[in-house]
């Protein structure tokens, strides 16, 4: 693990309340897609997975803004060229040599490691991206063009026009219970603890002998 500094290059909205943050690539930083960096802030720390590839000129993150959140406030107030202290790379949530067909399951900004996988050449597997509303589907073009099976799972009622034909109305857990053929898979789950817990229960019940890789955001 190393300590780095990086400066803010760009910051823009990806979706309502979700920012993409782009920092200069720290010299000497080597990582595997799916790993994260730790932001050392004034009195607290935050972990974010890179959505960029290891050879990109910048390191990019997608960050959900939280009302009253310290990091959200610090990021909003940071000027271009502001410097951040980081450590990393951290984490083991990386694409493994496939033993079974891959199923990637994300909720919200939990899609970040899968964006990094796709940008780094992963081109096989089913990706379920669970969101409340279609305007929170992040990196759709990247994911859709890389993977043969990309299914947005939209939990609230939505207007189908303008959204992918294959969008599933319901949560990722409903899709897995209703649509995924029984079998053995390599599951990669990234999102909040409740989703991880519910999907793990389904895997134990329906997809016995599957492998399971987990990254929890809480």
């Amino acid at each position, binding site marked *: 693990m190393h300590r780095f500094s990086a400066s803010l290059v760009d910051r823009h909205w990806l979706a309502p309340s979700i920012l993409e943050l782009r920092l200069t690539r720290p010299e000497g930083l080597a990582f595997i897609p799916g790993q994260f960096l730790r932001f050392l802030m004034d009195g607290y720390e935050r972990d974010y997975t890179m959505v960029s590839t290891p050879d990109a000129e910048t390191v990019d993150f997608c960050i959900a803004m939280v009302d009253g959140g310290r990091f959200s406030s610090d990021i909003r107030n940071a000027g271009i060229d502001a410097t951040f202290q980081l450590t990393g790379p951290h984490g083991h949530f990386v694409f493994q040599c496939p033993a079974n067909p891959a199923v990637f399951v994300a909720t919200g900004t939990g899609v970040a490691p899968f964006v990094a996988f796709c940008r780094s050449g992963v081109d096989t597997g089913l990706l379920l991206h669970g969101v409340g509303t279609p305007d929170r589907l992040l990196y759709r073009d990247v994911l859709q063009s890389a993977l043969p099976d990309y299914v947005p799972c939209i939990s609230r009622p939505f207007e189908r026009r303008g959204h992918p034909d294959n969008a599933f109305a319901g949560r990722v857990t409903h899709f897995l219970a209703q649509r995924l053929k029984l079998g053995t898979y390599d599951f990669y789950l990234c999102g909040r603890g409740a989703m991880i*817990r519910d999907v793990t229960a389904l*895997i134990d019940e329906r997809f016995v002998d599957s492998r399971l*890789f987990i990254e929890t955001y809480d």
Partner: protein
Amino acid sequence: MKIYTGTGDRGKTSLFSGERVSKSSPRLEAYGDLDELNSVIGAVAAALDPGQSGLKDEIQAIQVQLLESGAWLATTPGAESTRFLKPFTIDPADTLESAIDSMNASLPELKHFVLPGGHLSASLAHIARTVCRRTERRAIELVEREDGESGPTETMKHILVFLNRLSDYLFVLARFCNHIQGQGDVQWGG
């Protein structure tokens, strides 16, 4: 980081290499015992006098090695995830041998059987020794069941040597703890 995930509520857990396994599987038994061993060794360190900081550091270094060997036990041999694990070499076993020799040099020659007991730190070291022997047995059972005729990996061989040497270390440590407390061994009168 939340401590509870709820992903182990149905009697299964995930190995570091991704497989879902029963919590009663030999692999879980082995690294569960390793975890118990590490906890008891922590109690030995906690029972030492404040003046024994050098010995405490030595024991904490062993605890780190136990954590590292636990990570190997929690991973299917040959899995890609092993790239994240620190190589476990024969060096920790060699270090234990040096520590055993160093403590032994200050102890009276062993001419009798000793009863586990004496000072609290020594008594805990004896408990740690017995847990270590059980951990070693579980690890051997795991290797025999899962590696079959191919035999253990080099890493697993090093872990088995480390566990074997560690129980010797803990026996000598128990005697050493009594010695530095001025109590001597509790001798078997038979």
